[in-house]
C-alpha cells in the first residue's frame, strides 16, 4: 500500500509559464545560515558516451531472424520471439481471438506435455516461458538461470512451434476474458481511457472495438489453431536472446534446435489502417460510486516518423509533461484541483497514437478544471512558449535519453522493435538531433497545425449530481455513454463432425453417471415439489411450487406466492396461465420461458441425442451445447470427476427487453427410480444469484392424467 507522490510518468518536463518573471533573480542565502550550495554552481563532467553494445544478427536457414547479445553480469538467459500478428487481425465477430490465442499457446501445453506439466517443469527450475498477443505484436518469451539453458530452450521451442491448445485451457482463457468484461467498468480511470481511445479511433474499427461476451463465446479451438497457424511461421518470427552465453555457441544451438521448424505461409498482410468513424464531442459516463471525475481530452496523435514528432513532444511537455508544465502548475499546484493531471503526445511506429490530456479532479471542480484545460490548449496554440520553457523541455528530453539504452535488455528489445516496424536503427540518434533543433516558432507552428480543439473528444467519468455546474456549460452538447455491458446471448457454436461425435460421447457418459439411458427413458411423468428462496435483491420471498410433467411435453406448474396462487399449463406449443386476477393464453415471454423450461427438462435434456431435431456439440472435455431447430440452446457442463451434470447455461426471455443469461448449478443428487436427480438448484440471472431451490418431494411414474393437469382452476 504505497502512497506515491506521482502517478504521472515523467517523460519530460517544462517550465513555470504562469510566472515568467520569477525565474531569474539569484537566491541569497538566508541570514545567519551557512551559505547553501546552489545547483547552479555545479559543473558536470561530460556524460561518458553510451556504449551501445553490438548485437549479432543472423537469418537462419528456415527464414527466422536471430539477434544475440551477450550479457555476463548475472548467470541468466532470456529471450523473446517476436511474431508479426496482433488483435488488429481479430475478425469482427470474434473479437478476443488473438488475445485468447496468445494466452493458450502457453497454458494449453504442447504436443507432448500438458500446460500443467510445463508449469511444474519450469517452476521446478525457476524458469518461465510465456506467450502473449497484443495490439500489433505477438511474442513467446523465456527466462532461466544459465544452468538450465538447454532445458528452457527445449520448452520454449515446443511452445512456439507445437502448441496443442487443450480445451480446458481455452475454457480458462474464456473465463478470464469474461471476467475482464464483467469488471471493465469498475475502475473509473480505466473507463475514461478506454472510452476516449475507442471514440477517437472509432468504435467500429479494430483500434476502437472491444471484446464482448458474444464475441468471446463464439471463439472455438479451431479458431485458435487457425489463427496460430496463420502467423507463427519462421519467416514471420524474429528471435532475440540475451544473457550469459557465448554468441557462436548459442547461434549453433538455436539453429539446430529450430532446424525442423520449416512451415511456410504467405506473408502476413499489413495491419488495418486507422480509419474508423470517430465521433468527436463531449461525453459523459455516469459512475455514482466515485468522488472524482476522471477525464481524457484530446484527439489523434501521430507516428514516430512524423517530421514534427520531436516538436510535438516538446509542445506536449510544456503543456502538461512534467512538474513545471503549464497544466500541472495551474491545475495541481495553483488550484489544488488534481493529484493526477498531464498531457502526452503519444506516437506509435505504424499508426497514429493519441494526444491525451488526462487526470482526475473532485466532482465539484470538474467544470472549472475543464475550463482551465481549454484555456491552456488555446494559449499554447496562439502564442509562443518562452525561451526558458523551451530550454527546460529540451534539457529534460535530451538528458533522459541515456535511459533508453541503460541495460542490454533494453538495447536488444529496442533493436527488435526497430526491425519489426522498419524504423531506422539510428532512430534515437536522429531523434536527439531533431530535438536539439526545435525552436519556439516550431512549437507554436505544430500546436497550431496539429491540435484542433474544435474537434477534441472529451470524456468525463464521474457523478454529475455533484458537478455543481452541468458539463454543457462548457458550450458543447453532452452525449451520454451507456456503460451497460451487453449481456451474452447463447448461440449454438458451429459443430463439426468431430465435435458432434464427441458431444454424443460426453452425453452418453453423463447418462451413464446419472443411472443409464434406460432408466432415464423409463421416466414418463413426474411430480416435483420444491421451495424456492428468491434472493432479497430480487424480491426476497419464499415460494412453494409444484411441477407436473407428462412425456413428452405436457407441463403444469402451480405456484404459491404471498400474493396468491398462479397456475400455468403448456402442451409444448400453447397453453394458459391463471392468476387471482383471471386467466389468459400463455404468450410472449411467458410462453418462451415455459418452452425453454421444457427444452431443459432434466430427463429430456439428458436424452437430447434421442430427440428429433436436437444437436449435441462438444465445446471442451466437460461441456456440451444442445440446440434445436426452434432456436433453443443450452450449455451443459459436467463434473470432471463424477461426470454428473453440474451446471446448465441458458437464456431467459423477458417482456420488453433482450433475454438475459441464466444458469443453474445442480447439487445434492438423490436417486429416484434409478436416476440421480439434483435436489438443490442455485439459479443465477444476469450474473447474479437469483434463487436457491430445494426439492421437497419427487415422484416419478405415478400415472398422472393429462385431463387433470390441463384443467384450469
Amino acid at each position, binding site marked *: *500500500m*504505497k*502512497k*506515491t*507522490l*506521482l502517478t504521472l510518468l515523467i517523460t519530460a*518536463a517544462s517550465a*513555470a509559464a504562469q*510566472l515568467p518573471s520569477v525565474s531569474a533573480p539569484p537566491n541569497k*542565502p*538566508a541570514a545567519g545560515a551557512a551559505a*547553501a550550495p546552489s*545547483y547552479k554552481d555545479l559543473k*558536470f*563532467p561530460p*556524460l*561518458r558516451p*553510451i556504449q551501445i553494445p553490438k548485437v549479432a544478427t543472423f537469418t537462419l536457414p528456415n527464414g527466422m531472424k536471430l539477434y544475440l547479445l551477450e550479457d555476463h*553480469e*548475472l548467470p541468466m538467459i532470456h529471450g523473446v520471439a517476436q511474431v508479426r500478428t496482433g*488483435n*488488429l487481425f*481479430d475478425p469482427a465477430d470474434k*473479437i478476443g481471438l488473438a488475445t485468447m490465442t496468445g494466452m493458450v499457446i502457453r497454458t494449453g501445453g504442447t504436443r507432448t506435455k500438458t500446460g*500443467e506439466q510445463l*508449469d511444474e517443469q519450469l*517452476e*521446478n527450475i525457476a524458469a518461465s516461458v510465456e506467450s*502473449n498477443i497484443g*495490439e500489433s505484436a505477438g511474442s513467446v518469451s523465456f527466462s532461466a*538461470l544459465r544452468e538450465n539453458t538447454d532445458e528452457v530452450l527445449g520448452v520454449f521451442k515446443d511452445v512456439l512451434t507445437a502448441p496443442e491448445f487443450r480445451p480446458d485451457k481455452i*475454457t*480458462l482463457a474464456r*473465463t478470464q476474458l469474461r*471476467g475482464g468484461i*464483467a*469488471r471493465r467498468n*469498475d475502475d473509473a480511470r480505466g473507463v475514461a481511457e478506454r472510452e476516449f481511445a475507442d471514440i477517437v479511433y472509432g468504435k467500429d474499427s479494430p*483500434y476502437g472495438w472491444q*471484446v464482448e461476451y458474444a464475441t468471446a463465446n463464439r471463439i472455438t479451438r479451431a479458431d485458435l489453431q487457425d489463427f496460430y497457424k496463420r502467423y507463427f511461421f519462421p519467416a514471420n518470427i524474429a528471435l532475440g536472446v540475451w544473457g550469459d552465453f557465448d554468441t557462436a555457441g548459442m547461434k549453433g544451438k538455436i539453429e539446430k534446435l529450430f532446424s525442423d521448424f520449416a512451415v511456410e505461409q504467405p506473408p502476413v498482410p499489413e495491419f488495418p489502417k486507422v480509419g474508423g468513424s470517430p465521433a468527436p464531442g463531449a461525453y459523459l459516463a455516469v459512475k455514482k*460510486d466515485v468522488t472524482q471525475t476522471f477525464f481524457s481530452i484530446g484527439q489523434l496523435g501521430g507516428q514516430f516518423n512524423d517530421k514534427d514528432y520531436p516538436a510535438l513532444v516538446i509542445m506536449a511537455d510544456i503543456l502538461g509533461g*512534467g*512538474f*513545471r508544465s503549464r497544466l500541472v502548475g495551474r491545475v*495541481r499546484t495553483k488550484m*489544488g484541483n488534481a*493529484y493526477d493531471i498531464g498531457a502526452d503526445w503519444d506516437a506509435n511506429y505504424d499508426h497514429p497514437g493519441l494526444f491525451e490530456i488526462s487526470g482526475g*479532479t473532485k466532482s465539484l471542480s470538474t467544470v472549472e478544471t475543464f475550463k482551465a484545460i481549454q484555456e491552456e490548449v488555446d494559449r499554447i496554440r496562439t502564442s509562443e512558449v518562452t525561451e526558458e520553457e523551451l530550454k527546460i523541455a529540451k*534539457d*529534460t528530453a*535530451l*538528458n*533522459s535519453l*541515456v535511459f533508453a539504452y*541503460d*541495460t542490454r*535488455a533494453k538495447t536488444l528489445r529496442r533493436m527488435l522493435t526497430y526491425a519489426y516496424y522498419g524504423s531506422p536503427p539510428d532512430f534515437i540518434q536522429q531523434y536527439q538531433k531533431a530535438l536539439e533543433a526545435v525552436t519556439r516558432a516550431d512549437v507554436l507552428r505544430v500546436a497550431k497545425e496539429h491540435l484542433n480543439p474544435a474537434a477534441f473528444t472529451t470524456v468525463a467519468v464521474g457523478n454529475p449530481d455533484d458537478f455543481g455546474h452541468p458539463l454543457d456549460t462548457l458550450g458543447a452538447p453532452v452525449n451520454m455513454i451507456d456503460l451497460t455491458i451487453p449481456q451474452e446471448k447463447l448461440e449454438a457454436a458451429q459443430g463439426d463432425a468431430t465435435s458432434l461425435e464427441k458431444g454424443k460421447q460426453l452425453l452418453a457418459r453423463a447418462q451413464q453417471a446419472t443411472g443409464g439411458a434406460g432408466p432415464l427413458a423409463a421416466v414418463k411423468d413426474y411430480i416435483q415439489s420444491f421451495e424456492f428462496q428468491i434472493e*432479497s*435483491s430480487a424480491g426476497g420471498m419464499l415460494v412453494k411450487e409444484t411441477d407436473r410433467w407428462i412425456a413428452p411435453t405436457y407441463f403444469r406448474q402451480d405456484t404459491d406466492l404471498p400474493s396468491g396462487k398462479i397456475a400455468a399449463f403448456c402442451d409444448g406449443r400453447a397453453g394458459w396461465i391463471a392468476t387471482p386476477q383471471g386467466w389468459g393464453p400463455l404468450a410472449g415471454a411467458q410462453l418462451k420461458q415455459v418452452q425453454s423450461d421444457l427444452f431443459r427438462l432434466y430427463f429430456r435434456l439428458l436424452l437430447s441425442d434421442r430427440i428429433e431435431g436436437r444437436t449435441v456439440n462438444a465445446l471442451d472435455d466437460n461441456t456440451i451445447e444442445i440446440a434445436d431447430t426452434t432456436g433453443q440452446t443450452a450449455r451443459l457442463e459436467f463434473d470432471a470427476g463424477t461426470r454428473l451434470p453440474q451446471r446448465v447455461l441458458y437464456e431467459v426471455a423477458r417482456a420488453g427487453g433482450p433475454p438475459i443469461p441464466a*444458469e443453474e448449478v445442480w447439487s445434492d443428487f438423490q436417486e429416484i427410480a434409478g436416476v440421480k436427480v439434483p435436489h438443490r438448484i442455485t439459479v443465477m440471472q444476469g450474473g447474479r444469484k437469483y434463487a436457491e431451490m430445494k426439492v421437497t418431494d419427487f415422484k416419478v411414474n405415478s400415472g398422472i392424467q393429462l385431463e387433470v393437469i390441463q384443467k384450469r382452476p
Partner: protein
Amino acid sequence: MRALRLCAILLTAAICLPSQDLKEFEKKVTQFTLANGLHFIVAERHEAPVVSFHTYVNAGSVDDPSGETGIAHMFEHMAFKGTETIGTVNWPSEKKALDAIEEAYDRLEAERNKGPKADESRIGVLQAQLKMAIDGAEAYVVPNDYLGIIETNGGAGVNAGTSLDSTEYYYSLPSNRTELWFLMESQRFLRPVFREFYKERDVVLEEHRMRVESNPQGKLTQDLLATAFAAHPYRNPPGGWPSDIVSLRRAEAKAFFDKYYVPANITMAIVGDVNPADAKRMAERYFNPLPARPLPPRLHTEEPPQPGPKTAVVDSPTQPIVAIAYKRPDQYGKEDPVFDVISLILSSGRTGLLYKDLVQDKKIALVAQASATYPDGRYPNLFVFFLVPSVGHTVDENLKALDNLLGQFKARKMDAETLARVKTKARAGVIRRLDNNAGLAQMLATYHASYGDWRKLFTSIDDLNQVTADDVQRVARQYFVLPSRTVAYLAQPGVAGAPGGRQ
C-alpha cells in the same frame, strides 16, 4: 483494441540469495556511516552511465500522532516543495508571508475552538483573511522548482512513497550528474520550508479521492485494515483519514520532521555508475551539516489479541472482491521465513495451490493470491488472501473453497518437491532483481534499515532454506484459525448471499 486488463492485485512476497551469491555481490558494495549517524550503501554497476538513488526514512504513517493521521505523507509531499534557496524568489519576504498565513490560521482556529459559541460571521472573515494570506505567499514561489531541476537534468522515475513503516524518496540520473542528487537530497532535509502547505493539502485530498474513495480496491483494503486492527496504527490508511488531512497544519509537519527525520534514522543507497570514494567525499560535504539528533521514540501501542472472527462488508456497485486476513507476528519473529514459504506454496506462479484450485480447476476465481506480510512488516501484521471471483461465482463460494484448501493444507505435510521448488524460485527471484539499479537501491536501503544489515537480502534465503514441512504445517495450524480471521468483501448494496449476510 487494447489488450484486456484484468483486475489483478499484484502482491509481491518478500523473497530473498544464499551465501555463495553474497560473496560475489559483496565485492561491489561499500558502506559508511557519517558522524551524524546517516548511513550510506554504495553498489557499483558500470554497465551504463546512469545511477539510482534511494532514501529510506525509518518513519511512516504508524508514527502519525493521534488526530494528525496523514502527516507523514503530507511531509513527503512537502519534501518536494523546495528549500530556502530552491523554489523562492526572495526567501526573507516569503518567510514573512508564510508566517502571516500561520497567524491568520491561528486566529481562525481560535474562533472555531469556541465551539457552539463561535461567531459564524467572524469565521467567514477569518477564512477570507487566511485565503488572502495564502494567495499573498504565492507571489514568492517558483512553482515546482525543486522537481523541475531534477527533471531538467534527466531525472528518471522521480517519486516517493509513504507506507505504514517507512517513507522513501528515489530517482535516477545520468551518472555525470551524481553531485546534483547529493545537493538536492541534502538541501531538502537541511532547509525544508513547507511552502504551499495548504494548496498541497488540497492535492493530497484529491489523492485520497482517487486512491480510496473512487477505487473499489482502495475502499476494500482501507476497511480490511480498519476492521482487523483495533488499536495498532496499522488500522489507519497510510495517507490518513480525510477529516484529519483537512485539518493538518504546517507546524505539525515541521514537528514530525524534527522528531523523525534525524540522520541516524535514515539510510541512503546509491547504485550504478558511481565511484565509492567520490560518493563518500560528496556525502561528507553535503550531509555532514545535518545535525546529529536523538532517535525518535518507539511506538508502544500493541494490538491486543483478537477476540473473535470479524467481517466487514463494503458497499460497492462493482464486481466482488474478497480479502481474508489472519493475524501473524512481525517480520523479526523466527516464523517469518515460514510465512514466506507458505505464501510461495500457496500463491506463486501457476503451481501455486490457490491458482491451481480456485482459478485453473474450479474456475471460480480470476485471481487468487496470498501476501505473507500485509500491510507492512515491522509490527505484528496480516497474512492476507485476495480472491477475485469469476463471472457468476460468489464471494461465498470462494471463501468455502479457500477454507477447504486451507483445511487440506493443515491436514497434510507438504511434499519435498513442492518445498524444493519454492526455495529454488525464491533464490532465482533475488538474482533476477540484481540487474536493476533502482530496484537494487531500494532493497539495499530497506534491508539495512529494517534488519541492520543489507546482507540480510541474501542471508534471508538461507533462513528460508531451513524451513521444513513440519514448520509449514505447524505455522499454518497455529495461525490460520477462525478467531484471528478478518474477512472483508465488496458487495452490491442490498444484496445478500455472502457470509455474515446483511439484514
